[in-house]
């Protein structure tokens, strides 16, 4: 039965996590925005709140039907939406869970999940010469006896400095394109693995973004995550193999989209709070003749945000119900990524000098928001994915 509403149990999750965001994250937002590269020490509290809430809601480790109220992915999206209402930079900097963890849970085998599932894993894909074009990565992995030898450079690795380990995408044979790409788990402290640099950034300054160097870095054979040691010659098997790697994105995109939604809502809420000090009230459903330009704009932005939110919830619900959600995940990411940025920039404009000033967080939101339309696949990549599926096209037809 069509019912795109949250059951009370998930509303409780919202409330709890919102409170955590408000009381744990917001007070330290500006501090870590200013102190770039300084690891936030207050974050353990947030993890505890999330864990407690998860336990209370009864969300299991494995995906469970949302029908049972406890779908893991919808719960996760809702939780992180609220945490990112607090501060998306701090959320990304919270110890313990990185995008690499999603990869381990998505493609790792049982032993791997058991061994690394609880450790903080970053995800290293991008290279200086390969951004969205992940089939063109040039970091290599060569099997030598019982060890893989990893060589290459990775950039823009979120949590790359502070995490315990990194999921690294590398190729078994650069001339074989995407069929040769595999992901590997490299632990911190492995000889030949160094953090070369931390980026100074427009936003999400609380989170570290690292350049990693792998120079003759040897890791155990069993650190290959999902996919086979040899390159499949059968085309379907090869496609499936790369598809497996890419599938991680179907899981992580709703999460990143959820971040943009939380941030967008934060900007709208803060704008209304500031406006209220000068007497502003909403006028939903009013005509353009009655509404002020601000009332009109905020209603339109709220509508766009709600649209993005429902797309993202749907893509998470599909995951929980084991439906293929690649198109829907990209729809949600495309919409949420761009609208989060638009909202936050518009809110700064609406609040004028106050919006532009560091006295409030609106200007920070509008810096943080930009990356959410870029990482985990840019707006343009999401559009490509959606278009190919809607039009029934291959990546060679629609480039």
């Amino acid at each position: 039965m069509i019912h795109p509403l949250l059951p009370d149990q998930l509303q409780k999750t919202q409330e709890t996590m919102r409170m955590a965001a408000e009381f744990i994250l917001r007070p330290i937002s500006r501090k870590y925005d200013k102190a770039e590269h300084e690891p936030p020490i207050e974050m353990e509290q947030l993890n505890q709140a999330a864990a407690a809430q998860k336990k209370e809601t009864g969300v299991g480790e494995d995906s469970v039907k949302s029908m049972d109220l406890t779908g893991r992915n919808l719960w996760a999206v809702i939780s992180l939406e609220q945490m990112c209402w607090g501060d998306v930079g701090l959320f990304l900097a919270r110890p313990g869970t990185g995008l690499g963890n999603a990869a381990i849970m998505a493609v790792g085998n049982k032993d791997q999940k058991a061994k690394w599932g609880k450790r903080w894993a970053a995800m290293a894909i991008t290279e200086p010469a390969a951004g969205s074009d992940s089939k063109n990565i040039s970091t290599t992995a060569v099997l030598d006896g019982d060890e893989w030898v990893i060589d290459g450079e990775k950039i823009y690795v979120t949590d790359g400095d502070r995490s315990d380990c990194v999921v690294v995408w590398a190729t078994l044979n650069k001339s074989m394109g995407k069929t040769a790409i595999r992901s590997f788990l490299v632990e911190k402290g492995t000889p030949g693995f160094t953090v070369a640099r931390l980026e100074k950034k427009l936003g999400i300054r609380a989170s570290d973004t690292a350049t990693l160097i792998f120079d003759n870095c040897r890791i155990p054979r069993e650190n290959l995550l999902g996919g086979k040691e040899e390159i499949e010659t059968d085309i379907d098997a090869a496609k499936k193999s790369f598809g497996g790697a890419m599938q991680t994105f179907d899981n992580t995109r709703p999460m990143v989209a959820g971040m943009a939604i939380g941030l967008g809502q934060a900007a709208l809420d803060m704008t209304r709070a500031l406006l209220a000090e000068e007497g502003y009230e909403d006028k939903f459903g009013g005509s353009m003749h009655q509404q002020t330009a601000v009332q009109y704009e905020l209603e339109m932005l709220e509508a766009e945000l709600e649209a993005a939110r429902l797309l993202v919830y749907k893509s998470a619900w599909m995951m929980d119900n084991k439906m293929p959600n690649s198109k829907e995940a990209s729809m949600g990411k495309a919409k949420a990524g761009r609208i989060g940025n638009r909202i936050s920039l518009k809110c700064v404009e609406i609040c004028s000098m106050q919006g532009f000033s560091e006295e409030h967080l609106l200007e920070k939101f509008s810096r943080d928001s930009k990356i959410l339309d870029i990482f985990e696949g840019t707006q343009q990549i999401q559009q490509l994915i959606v278009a190919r599926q809607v039009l029934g096209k291959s990546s060679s037809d629609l480039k």
Partner: protein
Amino acid sequence: MQDYTTDHPFDISLSEEQQMTWDMLRKFAETELRPNARDAENAGKPSEELLQKIKALDLIPLIIPEAYGGLGLQQDSVSNALALEALAYGDMSLAMSVSVPLLVAQIIAEHASEEQKAEFLPEFVNGSMFHIGLGINNATFSTDPYQSSVLAEESGEDIILNGSKMGIAFGEHAKTYLISASDESGACDLYFVSKDQKGVELSKTEYMGLKGMPFSKINLSNCKINASQKLGGHNYSIDFKSLVDSSRIGMSALALGVCQAVLDYVVPYTNERVAFDEPISNRQSVAFMIADMAIETEALRLMVYKSAALKDLNVDFHKQASLTHRFASHHGMKIGTDGVQLLGGHGFTHEHPVELWYRNLRAVGIFEAGAGV
């Protein structure tokens, strides 16, 4: 953050019953409405034959109480929205030729006094669907959408109505009009006005779109009616805001059906149309326009469903309906104009339906009372 309570999990799949109705109405839209859309537009109304088929769907008798010859079933709002979406996929005008009388029947069944019910409901089952014209669309644009451009003034046992209403569907077919009017206190209610009442002036108006059905404008000039002609009786007050909001969800559901029609039309067209040696859909500018169309259509769908679901929970759905309606108006029109753009010069001619959808989608955000959920 929410203001509702529910135990039901988040769900976006159709129930078995919803699926059956959906399949039936969507098929009707594709086989009966779509092929007749251009003819109805040229004639300015649906053919008698088509009207008979539409009536045979029995959508209106379904909700008329048994006492007045109907089946007396309560439809939930989500199912109503689904029905509107399915029908508008065929054609928006033709969908409205049933959704407008359905809305009137719903309003009367819910709000009218016993005498009014007895007078007006049976004819929905036995006679014309169009015996009552709904006058809610304001003739002035600066009027609050939750108020009326017709003013109601009490004078003893009588009520004097003054002002104009536009966009009364099948107005010439009607014998009675149900007109919204605002009184001095700011309350907005509905009033039954007979066609032959003194001070009633009817004229035909044509619009940019929705040409598959006839419309009238009504001008009320010192039109004196008895207080008992107020919907529900002299002392009854309707929640007019909720009525407008419900109708806005309905209009958004119609827009959704049309948006889906545009999307389903441009996908094969752009895949087949070759320029510069390749299907034009191989170009990102074309493909991304279609991707956005798909994204906004799906988003509109979820917003319509959520608004209707909130109404079904009997909680305040005003904000959600407002957001949905504004979204439908903005993105509906964008999809309408992109649909023509994707077909280029071909899209500008009557050879393809996209120019018709362009015109109909401009009605969204303007017509307030074309469907309810």
